[in-house]
């Protein structure tokens, strides 16, 4: 019985973590769907915007909400710049090479951020502390609650945006068929740019919220978050936005359950297990859990 509570508690923490992986995945899937680019710079773009939030909080003494907005705006602008000056000029290159472009962008951002903020881990103060309420032995921290609420609101809002607004429809059209979208009078270049901005901004939200749980911020803190986001996106089917959410939640919960298992080596190997599980699932469902099944050989 005692153990059951423990597992439940870890599952709850896992849901909160999973929401953040899901947001990270959402940003990457959005960018991939519209521009065919797997964005390996997501981690560093997120790191940069989190540092902006850090500066807003500590140096400019802004409130937390203000810092979050600053991070989102910074991420949005960085996303626009990256698309316009690194990816659009490289449109003729093979898709596989564009992965290297995003890597180059990541290196540049990392180096510049290192020059500005230095290489040590900086403490990130967070206003929401303590638990919100508890049921039995289960405690729900305010941070977990906020994470889930933010992720829900953001993803629902985003889905509504895609479904009902004109720009959202243009984005979906671009994702489906660039040429046809262009023929319908959609400015595909501008849509791609916008998607990069929004994708980066969603990542920034995840970054600012997750940083306090990993005790501080440094240059490489986001890489493992991005990889889990990437894994989540792949698990859900890289072309599916709801899939990204499902994948993120799954990975968050599974990872935390592995921590809960009291055998020592299981916790140490949890990343290995998570990846092994992903490979297993992909071998059975090659296009992820919710991905569109493409014809073989295409």
């Amino acid at each position: 019985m005692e153990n059951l509570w423990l597992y439940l508690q870890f599952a709850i923490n896992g849901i909160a973590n999973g929401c953040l992986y899901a947001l990270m995945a959402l940003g990457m899937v959005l960018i991939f769907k519209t521009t065919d680019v797997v964005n390996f710079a997501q981690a560093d773009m997120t790191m940069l915007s989190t540092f902006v939030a850090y500066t807003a909080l500590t140096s400019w003494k802004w409130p937390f909400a203000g810092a979050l907005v600053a991070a989102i705006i910074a991420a949005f602008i960085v996303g626009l710049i990256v698309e316009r000056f690194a990816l659009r000029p490289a449109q003729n290159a093979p898709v596989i090479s564009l992965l290297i472009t995003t890597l180059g962008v990541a290196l540049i951002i990392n180096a510049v951020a290192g020059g500005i903020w230095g290489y040590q881990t900086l403490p990130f103060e967070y206003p929401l502390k303590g638990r919100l309420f508890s049921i039995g032995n289960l405690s729900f921290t305010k941070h977990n609650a906020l994470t889930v609420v933010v992720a829900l609101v953001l993803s629902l809002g985003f889905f509504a945006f895609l479904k009902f607004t004109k720009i959202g429809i243009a984005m979906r059209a671009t994702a489906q068929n660039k040429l046809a979208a262009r023929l319908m009078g959609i400015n595909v270049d501008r849509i791609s740019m916008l998607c990069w901005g929004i994708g980066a901004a969603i990542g920034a939200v995840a970054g600012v919220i997750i940083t306090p749980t990993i005790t501080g911020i440094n240059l490489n803190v986001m890489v493992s978050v991005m990889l889990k986001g990437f894994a989540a996106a792949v698990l859900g089917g890289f072309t599916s936005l709801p899939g990204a959410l499902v994948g993120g939640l799954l990975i968050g919960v599974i990872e935390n359950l592995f921590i809960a298992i009291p055998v020592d080596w299981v916790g140490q190997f949890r990343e290995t297990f998570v990846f092994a599980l992903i490979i297993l699932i992909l071998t059975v469902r090659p296009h992820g859990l919710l991905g569109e099944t493409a014809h073989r050989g295409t």
Partner: protein
Amino acid sequence: MNLARERTRWLIGISILGVLPFVLPGYWTYQLSLAGASVLAALGLNLLTGYAGQISLGHAGFLAIGSYVAGLLTSSFGGSWFWIALPLAGVITGLTGLVLFIPALRLGTIYLAIATLGFGAAVTQVLLKLSEVTHTYEGIKVPGPAIGEISLNRDLTMYFITAGVVLALLWIARNVVHAKLGRAFIAIRDKEIAAEAMGISLPQTKAYAFLISAFYTGIAGALHAHIVGIAQAEVFNLGTSIQLFSMIVLGGLASLPGSILGALFLSLLPELLKLLVASQQYYNVIYGVLYGGLLVLVIIFMPYGIWGYLVRTSFKFPKARKFLTGA
């Protein structure tokens, strides 16, 4: 393919490699040996990714396995075992490469990317756990190669061994690429269904691609361990895999000279930069911006890599073209 012209190119290459260690200071011989190991790994990755179209972000795992296998053998039985350990590392790593071929049968590019990435991460974790068991937290101390009881000068010996192995495996890669198997690689990369319709066995070809690629990378790992003198799991991480990937894209996908150019360039770039930038404070910033900027610019202005650019440009100059492509 003009064989006489090709022979000239090989002879030029061999003589440059033979003279270099006597001209350059010892430190650069060491760096060149390391770069040689990278060249091997890049060749292996390019056979897999460039030719056969199977992406891998987990090649650091193969490097780690190769270096551990060879390192464990020579550290337990002595430097004279190097000559057995080197090929054995390649063979064992090659066989582990078959682990990845199973998901590769069913997965598309991005899905394979995450599967291989997971493989790389898993190998590092397992090897770290292994070093806890064997109490070698700082890595395995690897002796230099020896003949019988006579141990050899490490830097110089490793340089010539690496150079020899690179040339030999380059020759094999060249033959593979021009033979039936290489054509099959390209065919499954371009269109799996069309390749199968022509009678190419998809599982067999992919298995060969992973086997050969992992073999090359395993040998590279074994060489790396013996050049540096230590086999460590943490040295080969996701960053290494990604750097290997950048090498082949920068040099040119599906091109053997491209792999060499890309690997030499990216492994020697930090060393060259250290000569130019004295201050440690700005080194990281300058290196990052330069390296990242180069990747971005090369993809923009040379979409098919440095080698692809050279070949395309040389079309205007027939003599240069004949020298570059041999055709």
